[in-house]
């Protein structure tokens, strides 16, 4: 299942061959995990589309809450002029991070907006004024140039973490957890392995895939820096075996650095932190625990590229690559866009919506958030915009559970989703706890599979909220 970097001279077909063999030496895991589902991935829509650079928009809207954890508070005033990349917000707690102007311009009056995830948040709008690099120049500015793989010992582990915090980095894979909290030296929980997550297991999305093809060098440099900060001796880039060109690209870029590329099985949710660790290293992260509990730090490939830029060039996170894809978009594309641009502007840039477009989803179709207002701003964690058509979303009418157990067969956490869902429908907190409701991470495999079309994830979500409320007393 695995291709090690030492074999980097291999031609593509040989990498393909290696990926098909079951297990290569050096990994404890067998490249997969129990259960999970195989939804149609529809990556063909956008995987051939090179990343295009969005022309600087007229305005952006930056949410003051971009990440899991605390929001940031503004350090600028309305009508103040800011430069591209200037600090406009600072974190309010440790699990919180900074915010920077993603375009040069004038700060407008703060306003409340509904984000794609449904939360009403205070935002800072910026009216664009002044010049910043555009097109190919912007790409070169962010991902181009030379990315060193040697001499990184000169960077102090603590300083790397501070630079990451100063750049406002959050996990770009979707969860948007502040990166400096994970990538920091720790004596309490020593880290032996850094896993760079290049699985991108959500259907449709191709932004990480394109980045691995088009900018592998900063990913490698960022991974080396992050590993230096956490003190990991081993670095593994985990990629699903439906992205072999990315495997090849990363192998080439990582040659001679000691970074390994682990090819894992294509299966949803392979990109889940716990499941990728299990597939590669066979460690089970304890319930309610973190990867650090088994000596692992994990971060997404796009985050690694941003780490490299933050540490080496001291540049903040202002742009990210977003897949604008789905059958409801005229020209599915991968776009380098500033944080805070509206999803509507991205859709317009990609040719608009098709006539049968029916649902806009921030993220991928399995875990993403549906929203209806095209002015909704892009946040740091948004890796994609998937527009689905009426045919794709037409769900059958809900019927009663026939206890077929298909949800049990696919649950990657080995839970009994129907029992938990019914317990939370009947507001039975004790029963939902007995069935380990809090272990659910809402991947959606159960609801995807359910022949009775029961909204299992939604019911479990409501149940979890009830359990949390009960715990608070």
């Amino acid at each position, binding site marked *: 299942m695995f291709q090690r970097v030492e074999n980097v001279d291999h031609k593509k077909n040989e990498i393909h061959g290696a990926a098909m063999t079951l297990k290569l030496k050096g990994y404890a895991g067998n490249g997969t995990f*129990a259960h999970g589902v195989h*939804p*149609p991935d529809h990556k063909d829509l956008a995987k051939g589309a090179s990343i295009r650079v969005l022309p600087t928009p007229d305005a952006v809207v930056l949410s003051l809450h971009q990440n899991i954890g605390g929001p940031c508070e503004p350090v600028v005033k309305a009508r103040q002029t800011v430069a591209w990349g200037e600090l406009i917000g600072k974190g309010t707690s440790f699990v919180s991070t900074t915010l920077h102007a993603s375009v040069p311009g004038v700060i407008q009056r703060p306003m409340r907006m509904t984000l794609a995830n449904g939360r009403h948040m205070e935002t800072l709008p910026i009216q664009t004024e002044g010049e910043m690099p555009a097109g190919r120049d912007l790409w070169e500015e962010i991902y181009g140039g030379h990315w060193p793989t040697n001499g990184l010992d000169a960077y102090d582990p603590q300083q790397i973490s501070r630079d990451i915090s100063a750049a406002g980095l959050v996990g770009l894979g979707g969860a948007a957890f502040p990166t400096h909290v994970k990538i920091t030296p720790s004596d309490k929980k020593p880290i032996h392995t850094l896993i760079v997550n290049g699985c991108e297991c959500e*259907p449709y999305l191709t932004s990480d895939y394109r980045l691995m093809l088009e900018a592998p060098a900063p990913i490698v440099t960022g991974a080396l820096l992050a590993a230096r900060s956490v003190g990991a001796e081993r670095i593994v880039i985990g990629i699903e075996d439906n992205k072999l060109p990315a495997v090849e690209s990363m192998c080439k870029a990582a040659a001679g650095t000691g970074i390994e590329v682990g090819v894992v099985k294509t299966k949803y949710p392979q990109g889940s932190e*716990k499941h990728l660790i*299990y597939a590669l290293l066979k460690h*089970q992260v*304890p*319930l309610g625990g973190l990867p650090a509990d088994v000596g692992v730090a994990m971060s997404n490939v796009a985050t690694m590229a941003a780490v490299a830029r933050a540490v080496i060039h001291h540049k903040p996170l202002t742009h990210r690559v977003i897949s604008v894809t789905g059958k*409801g978009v*005229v020209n599915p594309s991968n776009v380098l866009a500033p944080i805070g641009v509206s999803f509507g502007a991205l*859709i*317009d840039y990609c040719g*608009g*919506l*098709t*006539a049968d*477009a*029916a*649902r806009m*989803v921030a993220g991928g*179709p*399995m*875990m*993403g958030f*549906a*929203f*209806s207002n*095209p002015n909704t701003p892009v946040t740091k964690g948004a890796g994609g915009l998937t527009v*689905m058509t009426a045919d794709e*979303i037409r*769900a*059958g009418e809900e*019927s*009663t*559970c*026939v*206890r*077929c*157990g298909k949800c*049990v*067969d696919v649950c990657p*956490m*080995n*839970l*009994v989703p*129907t*029992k938990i869902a019914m317990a939370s429908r009947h507001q039975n907190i004790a029963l939902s706890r007995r*069935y*380990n409701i809090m*272990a659910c991470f*809402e991947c*959606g495999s159960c*609801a*995807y599979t359910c*022949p*009775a*079309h029961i*909204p299992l*994830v939604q019911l479990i979500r409501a149940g979890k909220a009830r359990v949390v409320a009960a715990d608070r007393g």
Partner: protein
Amino acid sequence: MQATDSKQPAVPVIHVAPSPHLVQTASSTRWMMVDVLIALTPVVAMSLFVFRGYALFQLAVCTGGCLLAELLFVRMRGRPATVKDCSALVTGIILAMSLPGTAPWYVGVIAACVAIGVGKVIFGGLGMNLFNPAMVGRAFVMISFAGALAASGFEDLRSVVDAVSQATPMNAYKMNGVVTDLGNLFWGTTNGSLGETSALACFLGGLYLLVRRTVSWEIPTGLLLAVAAIGGLADLVGPADGWTVLHHLLGGSVLFGAFFIATDPVTSPLTPKGKFIFGLGAGLLIMVLRLFSGYPEGVMFAVLFMNALTPLINRWTIPTPFGGN
């Protein structure tokens, strides 16, 4: 944001809903039922071949009875009609296949009404029932019309259909120690409940269900393992009368029960481990009833008893979550 089709006057209608936004379109409860119907084809075909008019008559009475009972009782409860989910049709066919061809029409009708009414709708309809509806109906008539469903009720010496003029293999052995040829049990040219006689037909249907993953392999495997183990033991320690473990497996309704009755998802456990325990328990009870009770066969009571244990089995087999100890 304009729709590209200029004839569309407005922006497309955008829906919002919670994730996941993809559904597996190929799967629905109705399709599961249709799968069972497809799997029942060889069984039904074989029963028509062996029992001719008896099978046709019983199928008509039971499926008609179940469909009408479903319409009637669901309406009485003021619920939306559920005939379209095909579950009443499945119950009807399984009920017909579990009755003797010679049973009079009112037995089938009463069994159908009890199966749907008491077995299912009273509990709240499909998915809510505790006991396998077809088996509830059958148990009711078996006790109410002891004569018609006792071993002698299967036989009609004047019948022109060969199979019906013989004793059932299970009863012939129980009463007289007569051992039926394995070949006849395999092909199904013996007397018995309509669907149980042909081991081959049950295998074919069961294989289809397993390949389609409509039923899980754990229940039939557990059941057949338990029957084989205890049957083998009885073979070893019992008298050498020629009734072997293979007769236990191929004779009676073990195979029909293993693939079509015990596997009813509603009344069996949820987890793979629970399903296996359920299968083992059912197989064990079948053999206990066969060897030690007055009845020649025990599939129906074994399944009903295990149905009653299902909630407990579910409780005992809550799986350990990934990362838990």
